[in-house]
């Protein structure tokens, strides 16, 4: 095995090793500190872990594609809230109420279309103006959030539908509904990124945009598609989550973009683009939820959890930098 391959393997498996360390830590130390009699590594608890990873996880998986492109999307949290409002509000429309439970798939469709439309707005602006995605989506983040507040002021938008709640709380083959959506998204995106031309183009554009243009890749439409994809996934995340909770605060989803980016970076995807993996992002998402859950289990407060995640993120970036050094300072393995 060449050193390069070995390094690649190390990078890909780092996040999973980290998850194992977390599991071991919380099982041994955690169970001693916790007031609960239940073990942390309880099977049910691990199933819950996957389920709780879903809201940010589904977004983070899409963010991986965007970041492999060398772009970023800061508007996902606002899109998430907007799609949630469409989902819950549309079910109260008079014609929808006459449909009975058939209103549910229709409401989902409306919410998902909202997400796609918001993504398309971002994508079109990036494509047609050439303005950096960071700036475009920063504007979109503020703008979409403004729409959310315009809709219902400071008040929450609510519609509790028990059929929907029962569906969202259901467990099929032991896994929760949200987990199925998370895993299916991961599988589909993994196939997209590894087995299709679109996926290979994404890496090529992220690596060297100019070279990609010269190679005949139509970068603009490619970006547009990817922004529509992440808009769709932000809405899907909202659909999965709000089916279970039935009420959205106007500030819901705030900071989700940052948690999603954190998960992607923890998974080893490069901020500059051209390198990254869907499966590693899944690892990053699980690692974050595991930390939140584990630190809660041992009785640490939320501030501590954020501090620890921040420190780990910086450690990961330093490690990544070391692994990518060439020449004299190169890390010897």
């Amino acid at each position, binding site marked *: 095995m060449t050193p390069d391959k070995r390094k690649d393997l190390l990078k890909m498996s780092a996040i999973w090793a980290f998850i194992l360390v977390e599991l071991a830590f919380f099982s041994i130390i955690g*169970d*001693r500190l*916790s*007031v*609960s*009699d*239940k*073990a942390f*590594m*309880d*099977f*049910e*608890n691990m199933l*819950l872990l996957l*389920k*709780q990873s879903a*809201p*940010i996880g589904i977004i983070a998986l899409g963010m991986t594609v965007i970041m492999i492109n060398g772009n970023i999307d800061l508007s996902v949290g606002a899109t998430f809230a907007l799609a949630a409002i469409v989902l819950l509000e549309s079910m109260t429309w008079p014609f929808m109420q006459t449909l009975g439970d058939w209103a549910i798939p229709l409401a989902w469709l409306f919410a998902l279309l909202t997400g796609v439309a918001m993504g398309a707005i971002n994508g079109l602006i990036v494509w047609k103006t050439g303005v950096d995605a960071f700036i475009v989506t920063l504007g979109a983040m503020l703008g979409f959030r403004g729409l959310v507040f315009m809709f219902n002021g*400071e*008040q*929450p938008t*609510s519609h*509790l539908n028990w059929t929907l*709640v029962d569906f*969202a*709380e259901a467990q099929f083959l032991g896994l929760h509904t949200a987990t199925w959506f998370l895993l299916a998204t991961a599988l589909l995106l993994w196939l997209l990124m590894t087995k299709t031309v679109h996926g290979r183009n994404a890496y090529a554009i992220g690596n060297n945009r100019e070279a990609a243009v010269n190679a005949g890749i139509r970068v603009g439409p490619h970006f547009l598609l990817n922004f529509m994809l992440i808009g769709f996934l932000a809405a899907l995340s909202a659909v999965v*989550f709000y089916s*279970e*909770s*039935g*009420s*959205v*605060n106007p*500030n*819901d989803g705030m900071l989700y973009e940052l948690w999603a980016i954190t998960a992607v970076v923890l998974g080893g995807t490069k901020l500059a683009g051209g390198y990254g993996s869907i499966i590693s992002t899944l690892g990053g998402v699980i690692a974050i*939820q595991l930390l*939140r*859950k584990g630190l*809660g*289990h041992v*009785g640490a*407060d*939320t*501030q501590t959890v954020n501090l620890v995640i921040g420190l780990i993120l910086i450690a990961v970036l330093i490690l990544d930098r070391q692994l990518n050094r060439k020449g004299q300072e190169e890390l010897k393995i």
Partner: protein
Amino acid sequence: MNLTMKVALACTTAMIGTAAAAQSMTIGITQNNVGVDSYQTTYEQAFIAAAEANDDVEVVVLDAGGDVARQIAQMEDLIQQEVDAIIIWPTNGEAVIPAVRKASQADIPVIVTNSNIAEAGFDFVASFSGPDNITQGSRSAEIMCDKFTDMGIQDEARVVQISGQPGYTTAIERAQGFEERLPEVCPNVELVETQPGDWNREKSQQVMEAFLVKYDDIDGVYAGDDNMGVGALNAAKAAGRDGITFVGATNFAVGYEAMEAGDYWGSIYQSPVDDAEAALQTAIDTINGEDLPFLNYFDTPKITQDNMGDFTKPVF
């Protein structure tokens, strides 16, 4: 599954040594957003202190950071840990209902603290512990009436009201308590007009400016909280109108300071410490199977310039 059961069994057996030390109950709490204001910060400190003072109680203290998704995850975690009771300070009175239902299906009693969840969830809740806004409103009416009686104007006084944001239960109940109680204690005092101040000091100041132009004779101002009351006070000061009695429905630090300065007459003292201790006690009583009212209020005493020495300045 079988293996997991065995592992779980082994772990729990290993833990009996530590767990058996106290014949205790475990109570989990998931709070709204500690650190966003000093009321919630003080609440958390008081809650932990109260739990430490009680040898029978162990607590798992969690904070949702204002995030509904995180709060629901914390509810699931507490259910999974099989705590004996869960206290929840809802981030959203409706979004948490399914999570509360999950707890009640797992036979874990849920106590809602500080602000109640929506009525659709009442079936799944053991008890609500928090302040009674109607009582706060009616006590404000009593404070105002007593002051008018002292001044000898109880038969002619005219009062205006600045209420909280329309649509909020808190605002509606505080207004209701005042409006019902005032005619009972001071039947000849007239409430001439009510306008919303939206919990906002500047808005309340504008509302009061309009009142001052409209009415030559205002003897009292009742505000949904001291923040709005102090806004009204500022308007009166700017217009040079003296002799107005200001009463709020919840004491804030700004109101306490204005009382010290002698400008503001009184309010209702709502302590985060009492709030936290009441929530813990409600949870303990629920676990012990005691009969509790569904709405289990803690006491919110009157505070005026006369007795403010008995109270420390509010932290919020």
